[in-house]
């Protein structure tokens, strides 16, 4: 007995270790941000406590506009993504459109936010691709019209781009959750009682599946309210969104603005917390009204119109995403390509030839970093899940804390975490970079792997134990091979998330490490679209390759085992 406990103990430490790796920088980061917000940061001469940073923040002329743009783009994108996801799932279940859309999910999910934003900026701009297609022959525009279709005051273009990126995520989460609530049986029962297909789904499946969708929706809301890289590319400029405003304060040579930035970062946190609370409140109201609607017994129609409408909505959104990527790829090969031409004068590989060497170097850093982070995250998640299964306990509540980095806005704690990194001498090291990425990668890996791992039929494990295998053997020879597909998929998700990180790379990397994402965002502000195209394309390519590997490797390994394919 004693021996067994001892043997199990290293594994037992994994969940604790994982949580510590997470909570330490976030807690330290939050405190390291809150103290300066009240004027306390002795190394910069702040001995506080004082409310002066808050007074300066609230008196800032840019604040009202920044908060408005943040709320419009944050709530707008989340509502749009949520409505499209739920509407499409309800209206288009089992149709051809549904199967096609789900196939398009993975590529869009994999592509970093910045790449999408860069492409959409070119697609929608007044001198962009959409208007070029129709100008001047249809629109009569000899010159690009002076209309803010991107970088608009309220961040509507930003909201649209966020929705392009978030809808695939929510749809994928919904697909995963549907499997756990016996949706076919629910639907069959409701249909037998005479309910139309859409009404049946909304009345019987949605209430059951929503609790599983809640956390992803909150994460999307928190992300949309505090995104920086996409807002730099597509968001309003005068004033920018709150997160960008705070980001600028932290980067100002005037140290006194660090204090204002800290107060702004804390306000950003408040905005997100309030946003989530409002959403929760709306949930309760909708649930109340919905209960009455469900009990009312209206059967609903065949849902033909809804099916067409929601499918069109989803395809427009997915189409925007894919078109923006293809356009950036085209730009990287373009010769002269001026308004109003819809196709470049010539195609050339000159930009690639010039950029290949620097891009390859940056790509290499991105690749190594992504592999290191995804590998580490996978090891920790597997450790946590294995420990959970061996100890026979249901998922511990503490592991919910893993999702904290998805809910707390990055700017709210990265500044404080950077101070911690400088104090410990980790600042600018590869280790700090890996750690900072891990914070955001691990939750997604956990999210992707937890369900398949827990759902594996335990009779396989018992059979293996009966045949004399140790728990370790069971892990390596039964669980991992059987779950190779979800394990690799989770690793690919982790890799893609790492590639997409912008702010953590800047803060922890101390400018020493540039990744395809930091490079693409830096270039997108000004440089020629051809170069931006090269970086955006590579930035999209790496995660796609990872997903291809995640699908291809198990298929090849198990080419002669049909049940495992």
């Amino acid at each position, binding site marked *: 007995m004693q021996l067994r406990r001892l043997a199990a103990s290293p594994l037992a430490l994994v969940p604790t270790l994982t949580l510590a790796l997470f909570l330490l920088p976030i807690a330290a980061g939050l405190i390291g941000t809150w103290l300066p917000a009240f004027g306390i940061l002795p*190394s*910069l*001469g702040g001995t506080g406590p004082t409310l002066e940073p808050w007074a300066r923040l609230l008196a800032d*002329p*840019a604040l*009202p*506009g920044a908060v408005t743009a943040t709320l419009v783009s944050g709530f707008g994108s989340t509502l749009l993504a949520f409505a499209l996801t739920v509407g499409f799932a309800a209206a288009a279940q089992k149709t051809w459109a549904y199967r096609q859309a789900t196939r398009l999910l993975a590529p869009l999910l994999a592509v970093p936010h910045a790449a999408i934003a860069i492409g959409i900026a070119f697609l929608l*701009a*007044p*001198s962009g691709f959409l208007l070029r297609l129709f100008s001047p022959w249809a629109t009569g525009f000899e*010159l*690009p019209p*002076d209309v*803010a279709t991107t*970088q*608009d*005051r309220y961040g509507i273009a930003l909201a649209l781009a966020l929705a392009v990126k978030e809808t695939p995520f929510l749809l994928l989460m919904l697909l995963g959750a549907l499997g756990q609530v016996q949706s076919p049986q629910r639907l069959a029962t409701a249909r037998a009682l005479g309910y139309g297909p859409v009404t049946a789904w909304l009345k019987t499946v949605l209430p059951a599946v929503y609790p599983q969708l809640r956390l992803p929706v909150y994460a999307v809301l928190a992300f949309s309210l505090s995104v920086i890289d996409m807002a730099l590319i597509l968001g*309003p*400029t*005068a*004033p920018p969104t709150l997160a960008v405003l705070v980001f600028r304060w932290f*980067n*100002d*040579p*005037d*140290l*006194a*603005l660090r204090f204002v930035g800290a107060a702004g970062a804390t306000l950003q946190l408040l905005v997100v917390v309030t946003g989530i609370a409002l959403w929760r409140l709306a949930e309760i109201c909708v649930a109340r009204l919905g209960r009455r609607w469900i009990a009312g017994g209206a059967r609903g129609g065949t849902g033909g119109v809804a099916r067409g409408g929601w499918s069109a909505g989803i395809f427009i959104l997915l189409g925007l995403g894919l078109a923006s990527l293809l356009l950036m790829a085209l730009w990287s090969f373009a*010769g*002269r390509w*001026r*308004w*109003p031409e819809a196709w470049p004068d010539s195609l050339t590989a000159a930009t690639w030839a*010039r950029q290949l060497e*620097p891009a390859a170097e940056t790509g290499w850093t991105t690749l190594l970093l992504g592999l290191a982070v995804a590998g580490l995250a996978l090891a920790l998640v597997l450790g946590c899940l294995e420990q959970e299964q061996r100890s026979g306990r249901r998922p511990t509540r503490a592991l919910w804390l893993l999702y904290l980095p998805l809910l707390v806005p990055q700017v709210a704690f990265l500044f404080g975490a950077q101070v911690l990194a*400088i*104090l410990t001498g980790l*600042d*600018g090291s590869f280790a700090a970079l890996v750690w900072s990425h891990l914070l955001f990668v691990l939750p997604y890996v956990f999210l992707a792997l937890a369900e398949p791992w827990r759902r594996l039929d335990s009779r396989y494990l018992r059979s293996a134990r009966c045949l004399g295998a140790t728990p370790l053997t069971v892990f390596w020879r039964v669980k991992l091979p059987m779950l190779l597909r979800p394990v690799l998929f989770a690793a690919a998700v982790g890799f893609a998330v790492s590639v997409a990180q912008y702010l953590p790379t800047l803060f922890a990397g*101390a*400018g*020493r490490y*540039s990744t395809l994402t930091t*490079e693409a965002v*830096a*270039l997108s*502000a*000004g*440089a*020629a*679209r051809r*170069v931006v195209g090269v970086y955006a394309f590579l930035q999209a390519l790496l995660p796609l390759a990872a997903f291809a590997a995640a699908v291809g490797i198990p298929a090849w390994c198990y080419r002669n085992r049909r049940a495992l394919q």
Partner: protein
Amino acid sequence: MFPLRSIALLLGCGLLAASPLAAEPRAVPRFDEAMTAAQGQTVYFNAWGGDERINAYLDWVGAQMDARHGITLVHVKLSDTADAVARVLAERAAGNLEAGSVDLIWINGENFAAMKEADLLFGPFVPELPNFALVDTERKPTTVIDFTVPTDGLEAPWGMAKFNFIYDSDRISATPANAGELADWAASQPGRFTYPAPPDFMGSTFLKQLLIELTEDADLLQRPVESDDLFAQATAPLWSYLDGLHPHLWRSGQAFPTNGPAQRRLLDDGEVDMALSFHPGEASSLIVAGQLPDSARTFVFPEGTIGNTHFVAIPFNARSPEAAMVVTNFLMSPEAQAEKQNPEIWGDDTVLALDRLSDEARALFEAVPRGVATLAPEALGPVLLEPHPTWMTALEDDWRRRYLR
């Protein structure tokens, strides 16, 4: 309101300087000693990375340094020079006095004044560099006085800049000759002009150019801002000018491009008809690169436009100051300067005095093509001096308060 930012900056720096962490200044080696020590060192050159051509030039410099001196040059691409200044400050705050992450920094004006004031610079090292003797400090006084602040050997001149406008000659036949004509033209062509939002240096320079022209007593600008009232009085004509101009701008003045290159892209896309530039050769260079239409040309105001010099400096806590000195010396060499002046490479004017060069070195410059859109030296007009940096910070603050809402 007005000097809050600059005062706070100086105050912040002052507190840092007074803290026990402040170290003894490090000794500057002789250049031959530096050459020996530089072997195998790595120089993290923190320089704005928003222009593909400049990045390519720095890659070339890196290759030269590797081949000649065994120095590894890493271009840390900044989106704003202030990031690197902030980093050095943070390192000092954390007690990192000898192993800083910045070895060399591309800098001028406001950031130099702040770093000099706070003793964040290594040196004076510039007098030790052999190529500094070739710099034209007499006819180009801005090579030793940066925005009215004496460089005191703490930063090395790297290139000359002169404010100019790039325009599309297919769209504009008569170019404006002063601020008033510019506003008239903008009003007649609504939505076809804009400028980068300050504190981007291009946008700030545009404000200073207008201020020098519009204010009553331009000599005042050469001294630090003395009071809020004085600032309000001196800048009142500027604000009323901008209030009148903004409704006619691109996006009705509700949005601004992020920086100079972003505005050039708008020009190339046909969204506006003008862009701002700091390099007389830039338009030619961008036509060659296919980033501006062949019809792009440049003009200046005949009464003069702002000119200045950009520099490189070494932070006080650089890890490899010796190698940074060797790199700096190379940046000032005739070979590197001539390469840089070529519009097909970058198109940035030299800081050197051509009459002090050997025939061989002068031939390098004579071989540099001028480019189709570049004005002849005599057509560039007089150089207006940069105002004291305090004007710039105050202008940026007030601009933000008025128009960023």
